[in-house]
């Protein structure tokens, strides 16, 4: 079973990273979102430092939305989704492997980029570490929510905007506790503190719910 999961992971990573996969576009988008903020609020470093963690979170959240609609739609178009149905694996596990591959290709680079962009916003080292930690926990959950939205919209052409509209309300708790945990890292008594634990809890919740609900949605879409 783990061999099959590894095969799916490897295949999706290859598809994402090779030409036409579009893994890098999220990083460019993240950079663009973070760069336009100082233009909008002015190059005021104390202000940017204060809102920096929130800017990084918004940028990473928006960048994570890109390409979610392709997780299943691409497989649906070329027929490989039917093969995944026939695979001797629970469909939820297959979906989880695909989400994980998608996150490694698109989400992990955002987490790696965040501290570098944070330097441009004048964020200090402690907040940088905190925002990176919260993004590391939070962005996979965004991908797993997006897995469900991608499965719901699997048969639709041009569903990118719909997927974004479906994901954002469900991702709001992640944003709230992600930014709250980053603030708590600087001001709170316990490093990261309760908001970080709540963020972890919400992420774990979506790691379970996302694949199960996505598998159900895919089954119903095939009927």
């Amino acid at each position, binding site marked *: 079973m783990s061999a099959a999961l590894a095969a799916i992971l490897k295949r999706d990573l290859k598809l994402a990273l090779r030409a036409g996969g579009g893994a890098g576009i999220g990083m460019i988008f993240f950079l663009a979102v973070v760069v336009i903020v100082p233009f909008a609020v002015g190059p005021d470093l104390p202000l940017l430092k204060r809102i920096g963690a929130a800017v990084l979170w918004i940028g990473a959240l928006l960048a994570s939305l890109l390409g979610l609609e392709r997780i299943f739609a691409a497989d649906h178009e070329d027929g490989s989704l039917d093969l995944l149905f026939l695979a001797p694996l629970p469909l939820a596990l297959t979906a989880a492997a695909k989400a994980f591959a998608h996150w490694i290709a698109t989400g992990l680079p955002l987490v790696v980029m965040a501290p570098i962009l944070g330097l441009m916003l004048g964020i200090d080292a402690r907040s940088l570490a905190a925002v990176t930690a919260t993004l590391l926990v939070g962005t996979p959950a965004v991908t797993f929510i997006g897995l*469900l939205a991608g499965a*719901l*919209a699997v048969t639709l052409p041009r569903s990118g905007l*719909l997927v974004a*509209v*479906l994901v954002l*309300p469900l991702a709001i708790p992640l944003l*709230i506790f992600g930014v709250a945990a980053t603030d708590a890292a600087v001001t709170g008594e316990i490093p990261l503190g309760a908001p970080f634990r709540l963020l972890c809890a919400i992420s774990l919740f979506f790691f379970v719910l996302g694949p199960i609900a996505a598998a*159900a*949605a895919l089954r119903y879409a095939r009927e």
Partner: protein
Amino acid sequence: MPLSELANPHRFLRRARVLIPALAVFALVLIGVGLVQGFRAPADYQQGEMVRVMYIHVPSAWIALAAYTLMAIASLGTLVWRHPLADVAAKAAAPIGAAFCLLCLVTGALWGRPMWGAYWVWDPRLTSVLVLFLLYLGVIALWRAIDDPSRAAKAAAILTLVGFINVPIVKFSVEWWSSLHQGASVFRLDGPSIHPSLLQPLLISAAGFAALFFALHLAAMRNEILRRRLHTLGILAAAEAEAR
């Protein structure tokens, strides 16, 4: 069990023809009585006349939550029990619930400005109700995006059930977090904490809002059934014309 009996759309339509006008009249009378009593009720000792917003704000909030709960139950009906009218009920409830949710948000803003000094604050209760509104819009968008009704029904049902997590968050947000919004004052273990002179018009108004919701919901369900029939008739007519 009347629910299984209503699985026949024809029987449903026959009942709806009687129920819709009855509920509509009932709603008008109750809301009228509730609002008139509400305006005659004594003003609040702190909030003065502004407390009267409550007779619209609170019932619409209840209906917004109840409509989403109804959609979640109907979604179970679609996915688990495969009741033929469950998806019609879920689809018809979404725009009506969204409208009541918006009414709740707008009246809340109008109430908040004189009382809190701001139309909007990013308070847990307000934010979670806003998320409820966004979820309503997401469900409606998904319904409209998929043109095959039975496929759209199943996708919307799964989304509705996932979004149902938000309903208890709305309800308990005032207890879990420190909130500017007041806590529950009607449905409490130790009984309502508002004075009977204000509570009575509130409950009458709420009953009227519930009747209004069901009248609108049944009418929307009837329209959806008729719309699907028309669609089928159109296809049949086109097939006939082609055969000729």
